[in-house]
């Protein structure tokens, strides 16, 4: 990675602390000329000198050093409602991404020719075309229920590595985490299995959108497109049109909501997704919107929350490491754990690596490590 010292930040810190360049050189234990060369970008300090610079000036690595973005992991989040993505979250995810780099050579061979969405747009008609093309590629019709297996196959086709994790249903920031390594041309998708079953397919589709639009990864428009794509793919126009007609023929709003609830059950997606897609259809077709308030949909949805994916997969909870790995490999067809196992056996990598790349507790990571080391 090409690195340069941040001249401006260092000069400001020197001024603030009343230190001359000569005094700085003396404190670091080097010559004034060496410091001048560092500041001019002619040379870069050795690790021990860089550490001394940081402590003397009280500057963190990001303040002290300018690095190029080449090879930097690209992060995209599917956030939990109301969760705020902070720099610390991004930095942590980038750190995981950097640590995943050595794992890449242990992964199964990835698909080289991949499908991409060339002109991603959140325009309703354009989204419907993309959704229709995707469904056609998956071999399912416009009104068919899209299953998990269809999405899993598509991830595999796109060379994405799924990493199912148990991050808890509360407290943790992510529902899913998307880490793209541009230099290695690999995408890791962390799926939190401690998520409601009804939401799970939506954000799997959301993550698929990121995989299909790598140039939008990490950008706000990428998140917007991914949300819009997921809705259109899971509940396309043909479904929304039929639900709209059925709902508007009902004698009461309660009955209209029952129509939407029935559709949510059939398609195994949330009531909110159905509602949003029906309203988007109505708006695009210049029809009157359903006179149902969004807050009522949310209230109803919250009162009818189903089980977590993890609860349906692993009964009883928590699963043993062996069951967890086996279920993840079988259900999600992921080569992640096999690669991890190969790496541990080949490089002697320690348990702390498992803890850090899975963002797991020490307890879970140690147990998983023992299983992978066998």
């Amino acid at each position: 990675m090409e690195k340069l010292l941040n001249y401006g930040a260092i000069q400001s810190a020197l001024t603030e602390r009343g230190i001359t360049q000569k005094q700085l050189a003396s404190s670091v234990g080097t010559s004034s000329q060496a410091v001048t060369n560092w500041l001019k970008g002619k040379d870069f300090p050795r690790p021990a000198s860089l550490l001394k610079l940081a402590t003397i000036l009280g500057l963190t690595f990001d303040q002290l050093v300018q690095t190029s973005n080449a090879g930097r992991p690209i992060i995209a989040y599917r956030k939990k409602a109301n969760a705020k993505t902070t720099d610390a979250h991004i930095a942590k995810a980038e750190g995981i991404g950097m640590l995943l780099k050595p794992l890449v050579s242990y992964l199964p061979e990835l698909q080289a020719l991949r499908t991409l969405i060339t002109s991603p747009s959140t325009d309703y008609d354009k989204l419907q075309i993309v959704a229709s093309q995707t469904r056609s590629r998956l071999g399912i019709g416009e009104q068919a229920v899209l299953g998990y297996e269809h999405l899993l196959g598509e991830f595999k086709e796109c060379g994405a590595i799924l990493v199912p994790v148990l991050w808890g249903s509360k407290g943790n920031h992510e529902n899913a985490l998307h880490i793209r390594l541009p230099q290695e041309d690999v995408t890791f998708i962390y799926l939190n299995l401690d998520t409601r079953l009804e939401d799970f397919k939506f954000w799997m589709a959301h993550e698929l959108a990121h995989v299909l639009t790598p140039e939008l990864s990490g950008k706000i428009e990428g998140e917007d497109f991914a949300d819009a794509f997921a809705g259109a793919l899971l509940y396309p126009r043909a479904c929304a049109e039929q639900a709209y007609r059925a709902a508007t023929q009902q004698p009461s709003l309660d009955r209209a909501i029952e129509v939407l609830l029935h559709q949510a059950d059939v398609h195994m997606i949330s009531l909110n997704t159905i509602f949003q897609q029906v309203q988007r259809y109505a708006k695009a077709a210049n029809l009157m919107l359903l006179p149902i308030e969004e807050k009522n949909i949310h209230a109803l949805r919250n009162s009818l929350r189903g089980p977590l994916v993890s609860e349906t997969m692993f009964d009883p909870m928590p699963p043993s490491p062996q069951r967890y790995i086996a279920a993840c490999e079988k259900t999600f067809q992921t080569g992640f754990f096999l690669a991890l196992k190969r790496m541990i056996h080949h490089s002697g990598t320690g348990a702390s690596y498992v803890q850090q790349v899975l963002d797991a507790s020490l307890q879970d990571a140690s147990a998983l490590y023992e299983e992978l080391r066998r």
Partner: protein
Amino acid sequence: MLVLLDTNAYLRLAKRIRPLLGVEFGHNQYSLNVLKQVEDEVFKSPRLQFLYPWFTDTELKAERMGKLVRLSKEERTKIEAASSVLHAYVLSDPLGYTSHGRSPPSPTDCFILAFGQVRPAIVVTDDLGMHKLANDFDIDIWHGHDLLKKMLTAKVITNDQVREIFTALENNDDLPRTWQEVKHTSFKKLFGPKP
């Protein structure tokens, strides 16, 4: 001279060497201590609490709490700055830190090494990734067995205690590879030459 034990180093020694913390020994007046991170790490992990039930003994807890290192704002700023440099360095060489039995030092590991740099202190750990990082940055670092050897030389522990510690770690399948390597060299008088 302050000597700082990481969690594993503390857990490998504290049961059998009492008192452990705050006792000065050797020509350099070494004095052992731990950071609050050790307390946090064990109390966050039911596994560690199960494996080391003696950790919560009143006597040991009082010893740790009594010697707790307090940091000034200035020191904390410096340690956090140093820690960020160390962690960035780890992330820039992930291959180097995941091979030869190493794990990449975590942000907490980097904090301990940064503490050693700023205070200064010698860090005691058996983590090979931390050793590589410390060596790259000229930070003083010992393996647990280095500490044991120095304590033995300074006569603050006995041959029997060293034998007990090696045996216990072997029985618990927790004897680090580096300890195995020095068992019949640094501790040849106790364990004899390599069979």
